[in-house]
């Protein structure tokens, strides 16, 4: 019997492609965000509200992942930004190769912001780096406030928690402060915004976070370019 040390990441091939993507995003000054949640938490609704708020000339594009159907892309296309659907055909997460393939006929120099909507799943997307600058996790108030404790990985790895559907708070037994506390137990100092994509309540805070991230990303790129 001979034991050979391997000492490599299980997803080293995915990580290699993600690192290449990250370098390309950096080179072209593209801020890439990876939106993750369970199915039905409101990722697409958040993107709809975001795209309708952004100016028409903004250099934004969206990749949206699902196991089947073009429904989400069709919902998002009406805002006239470039949108592409990634149908995984059964896979429960997006991986870096899917992103690379679907970006192939877009010019990154024409973009400032790339929003990726992952497949609805709180587990597997946490393991697959897509080359993003940050992960954003969406949790709706119709789920449980203990989700951050049950699915710690994604809350730990995300920079921002978007608590969605706050318009339903009067009708559901969801303790929003406990949810925030649980998220910060897993990820101390985690940024949190509370929104309703239906009423628009709180969306200003999300747009501010996004604008700040874009601003913070830009000078860094200009510095490295000069």
């Amino acid at each position: 019997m001979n034991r050979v040390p391997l000492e490599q990441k299980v997803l080293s091939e995915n990580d290699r492609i993600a690192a290449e993507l990250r370098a390309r995003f950096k080179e072209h000054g593209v801020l890439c965000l990876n939106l993750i949640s369970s199915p039905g938490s409101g990722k697409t609704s958040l993107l709809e509200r975001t795209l309708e708020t952004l100016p028409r000339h903004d250099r934004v594009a969206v990749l949206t992942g699902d196991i089947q159907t073009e429904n989400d892309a069709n919902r998002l296309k009406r805002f006239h930004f470039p949108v592409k659907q990634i149908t995984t055909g059964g896979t429960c997460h997006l991986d870096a190769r899917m992103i690379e393939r679907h970006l192939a006929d877009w010019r990154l120099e024409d973009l400032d912001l790339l929003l990726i909507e992952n497949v609805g799943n709180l587990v597997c997307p946490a393991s697959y780096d897509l080359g993003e600058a940050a992960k954003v996790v969406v949790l709706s108030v119709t789920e449980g406030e203990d989700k951050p404790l049950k699915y710690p990985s994604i809350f730990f790895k995300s920079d921002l928690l978007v608590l969605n559907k706050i318009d339903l708070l009067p009708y559901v037994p969801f303790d929003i402060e406990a949810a925030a506390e649980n998220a910060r137990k897993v990820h101390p100092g985690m940024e949190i915004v509370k929104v309703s994509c239906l009423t628009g309540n709180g969306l200003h805070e999300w747009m501010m976070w996004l604008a700040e991230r874009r601003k913070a990303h830009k000078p860094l790129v200009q510095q490295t370019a000069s």
Partner: protein
Amino acid sequence: MGIANSVLEAVRTEMGRHPGTYPCKVGVRIGEMAAIDQDALRFCFEAMILETDLESLELGIEVCPRRHRCQVCGYEFIVRDYDSRCGQCASLETTCISGDELELAYLEVEEYEPSTAGAKSTQ
């Protein structure tokens, strides 16, 4: 399933470097924050090796706890029940240093018995 497949791909790649042997066991390290369910990984792994040349391959899983280092006093400790406060100076200024591993640790290979090797070469 994707993770199990990546493990098996790595095993096949590594086996190319060890002619005359067959793989017995592959070891992976999984952090408790890696979002990998051990039972699900084992189930997928076993389903994927069934009736293949790797059918006898064993999967060894080592679970790594979440570890933090205190930024104030440098103490390193295991985080339990999401309590990331320093166990020595009670500071909350601690950073995660491990616990999200998803790594291949080792591969155990065995040389073919001479008779088996002979049988193979006559095929």
